[in-house]
């Protein structure tokens, strides 16, 4: 009798309880990574939420798998050498630097396209958007590469360690002017953004705190020839300072520890994680609870993320399809979901820039616009045009010349290259082969796979009503922008 009951429970568990099902799996994968493929979904639908989250968290990486361009290890030319260049040499140098910047972006896109751990990429991007630096100011692509390596090493590691490492990161030292922050002549740029954007958030510190913290960071600079971090004691202000009530001969590391000891820091970071993964409206009590977990684990990132991805709020009905994909998520997600292969990865970089997310070059220290600000008239049309181009294929006539000309507004974006987006790399039959049943069943599955909500417009069978026309219709539907 007992054994029979056990068997019954086991059966019930297999049939209902243990697997979280298709909808939850889709939500979890789309939110914690990039848009899933049909086979990824089949696998995760059979796991419980807990199993699925633990599986995602145990698969994270600390290093990129795609080999970087060879030049990342080349030393940067020392400043004197650049200054001594002739005009022609300098032009060449600038061209080379721009080319390398593009190769760097292409490298990261390749990693995002191929990775076995989408969450690692999402978190690396999250920290890039948190501890912002930009090629536009930093110039040396080698330094931005090193920063990316740092961000991915700690992407799911320890926030406190990451913060201390970022303060010494050469790209950051250049980007926020630490290199020119000297005793008697403080430059407040790093100290201010550190408090406002990296740790506490506005309203949790005073102008006096910024001034005093800037003094504590004096002397944090770079070696002039190797561009490695270097502390110059003779440029450091060794006097007494008071930051957020703590006084003493504080140095930069002391200030970082003072900031980490403030409850506002954990709440600030958790609020950003909430907006990244859950919804545009953080729930205050949940933020407090999660911030408590963050602090209790001494700022380990995995436990707080685990709690977030298993929270009721994460799966709540009102938070489904409540977020707008970032341009990178749109591009990489589309490529992964449709198995689009063989495109020059620089095309993704160009497309991302056109849509307002130029990786390695955020617009300012606050990062890229988020939430609804991701969609305005220009960015929405750009998104749709790129989708139309990917799914145009041969059966799609339309005015191709006009499309090519439309790119001329962004000639710098490589108009001719963008036109290659439809160079026959999307294999619609392969995509449908992953689905099962008759044509109608497959189309219904495709719709559920691609869209987080039913489409705002039903497919009317236009453009011949074929599979490509069907997929294009879904990819151009406003709902495709949601996750």
């Amino acid at each position, binding site marked *: 009798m007992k054994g029979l009951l056990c068997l019954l429970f086991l059966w019930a568990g297999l049939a209902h309880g243990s697997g979280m099902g298709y909808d939850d799996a889709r939500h979890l994968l789309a939110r914690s990574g990039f848009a899933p493929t049909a086979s990824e979904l089949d696998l995760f639908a059979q796991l419980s939420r807990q199993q699925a989250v633990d599986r995602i968290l145990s698969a994270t990486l600390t290093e990129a798998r795609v080999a970087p361009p060879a030049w990342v290890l080349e030393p940067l030319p020392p400043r004197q050498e650049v200054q001594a260049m002739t005009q022609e040499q300098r032009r060449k140098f600038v061209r080379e630097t721009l080319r390398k910047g593009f190769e760097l972006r292409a490298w990261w896109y390749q990693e995002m396209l191929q990775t076995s751990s989408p969450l690692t990429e999402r978190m690396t991007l999250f920290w890039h958007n948190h501890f912002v630096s930009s090629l536009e100011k930093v110039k040396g692509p080698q330094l931005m590469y090193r920063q990316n390596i740092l961000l991915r090493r700690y992407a799911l590691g320890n926030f406190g360690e990451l913060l201390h490492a970022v303060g010494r990161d050469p790209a950051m030292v250049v980007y926020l002017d630490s290199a020119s922050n000297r005793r008697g002549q403080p430059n407040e740029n790093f100290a201010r953004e550190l408090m406002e954007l990296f740790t506490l958030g506005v309203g949790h510190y005073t102008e006096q705190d910024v001034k005093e913290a800037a003094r504590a960071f004096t002397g944090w600079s770079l070696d002039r020839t190797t561009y490695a971090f270097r502390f110059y004691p003779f440029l450091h202000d060794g006097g007494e300072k008071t930051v957020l009530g703590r006084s003493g001969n504080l140095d930069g590391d002391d200030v970082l520890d003072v900031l980490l000891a403030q409850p506002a820091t954990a709440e600030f970071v958790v609020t950003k994680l909430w907006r990244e993964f859950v919804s545009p409206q953080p729930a205050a009590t949940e933020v407090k609870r999660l911030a408590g977990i963050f602090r209790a684990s001494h700022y380990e990132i995995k436990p707080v993320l685990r709690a977030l991805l298993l929270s009721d709020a994460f799966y709540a009905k009102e938070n489904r399809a409540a977020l707008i994909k970032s341009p990178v998520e749109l591009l990489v997600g589309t490529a992964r979901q449709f198995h689009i292969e063989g495109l020059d990865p620089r095309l993704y970089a160009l497309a991302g820039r056109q849509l307002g997310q130029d990786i390695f070059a955020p617009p300012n220290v606050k990062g890229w616009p988020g939430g609804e600000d991701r969609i305005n008239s*220009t960015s929405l049309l750009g998104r749709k045009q790129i989708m139309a181009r990917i799914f145009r294929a041969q059966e799609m006539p339309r005015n191709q010349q006009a499309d090519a000309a439309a790119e001329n507004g962004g000639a710098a974006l490589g108009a001719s290259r963008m036109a290659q987006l439809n160079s026959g790399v999307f294999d619609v039959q392969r995509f449908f082969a992953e689905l099962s049943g008759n044509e109608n069943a497959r189309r219904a599955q495709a719709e559920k796979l691609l869209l987080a909500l039913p489409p705002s417009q039903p497919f009317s069978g236009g453009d011949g009503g074929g599979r490509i026309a069907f997929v294009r219709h879904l990819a151009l539907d406003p709902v495709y922008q949601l996750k």
Partner: protein
Amino acid sequence: MLRRDFLGALGLVPLVSALPNLAFAAAPAADYRNLLVLIELKGGNDGLNTLVPYADPNYYRLRPRLGIRREEVLQLDERVGLHPALQALMPLWQNRELAIVQGVGYAQPNLSHFRSIEIWESASASSEYLADGWLARNFKAHPVPAAFAADGVVIGSQDMGPLGGTGSRAIVLNNTQQFMRQARFADDAAAKSKNAALAHILKVEGDIVQAAAGLAGERSFRTEFPQGPFGNALKTAANVVSGKSGVAVVRVTLNGFDTHNGQPNTQQRLLKELAEGLAAFKSAMQEIARWDSTMIMTYAEFGRRPQENGSLGTDHGTANAHFVLGGKVQGGLYGQAPSLSQLEGGNMLHSVDFRRLYATVIEKWWGLDARGVLNGKFPGLDLLRV
């Protein structure tokens, strides 16, 4: 507004609107044929090296390396002058079409880029958080005619700034022709959604369709715009204004004013782009007989610290100088130059609340009541020709 509500309560609205002159008295029609062009000097332009108090020894004491030398200043009077890179604005000054408002800021200044621009763009007090931009609020209270292509057009920036907010019909574009061609991807399905993110996207689609219907294609101006993103943005702005239906506002952003480091070259380049771009825009507006119905106004999140820093730059500051120009603008200096001997926390004290600039636009330029929009009485400046 109160009057209209009162009439509405009495059930008199239909009667009133049947009588043209009375309807006018109840709700004066906004004159949105008067165009506002906002220029955002993003990053916080250094006003002290823009309008230079060259006669004040404190200026050279605070700026031993960064100060603009007296002989280089484009002198406007015996006290102040313009940065030499603003040469292209001098004809407008001499023509008395360029007003410069000094000491613009607000009480309890916030020195964060992001918070301070939010304060500026939402027209809030320092400690007040308002969701919508000041122009979005204005257009909600005083709607732009439905026949207009859009309430406002944003060029050179991805964020809506003062046009951001529920209901505002604002579009972002970089190139008119490209926009017109791509607009076929937008669907005006009039679909609604309870999902806020989806509702936002659907609204943007509708705005695109309407704007595309109202904007003309490229118009050829004889005026040559300066090369570069800002010149291109102003050319796009001129195209938008020349469209067959109107827009009430164009906002153009010029980036790069956060000069913590190596300020002289950067500011020199940016101010030159600004001045030459605006001079070209004036000429284009004259070509289409719109200069007399155009008002250009600059704004930024803050000015910069009077005391230069150690890296040939300046840190975040407070009070700032801003430009207002147009065919109907009464040129000259307005407001009070901030004192360089009486600083607070190293920063200058403001004399003109920035919301007075907005009141100038709403009341004097558009002929509307600004009190509701600005949540208080901020007297407009008398800088228009009567």
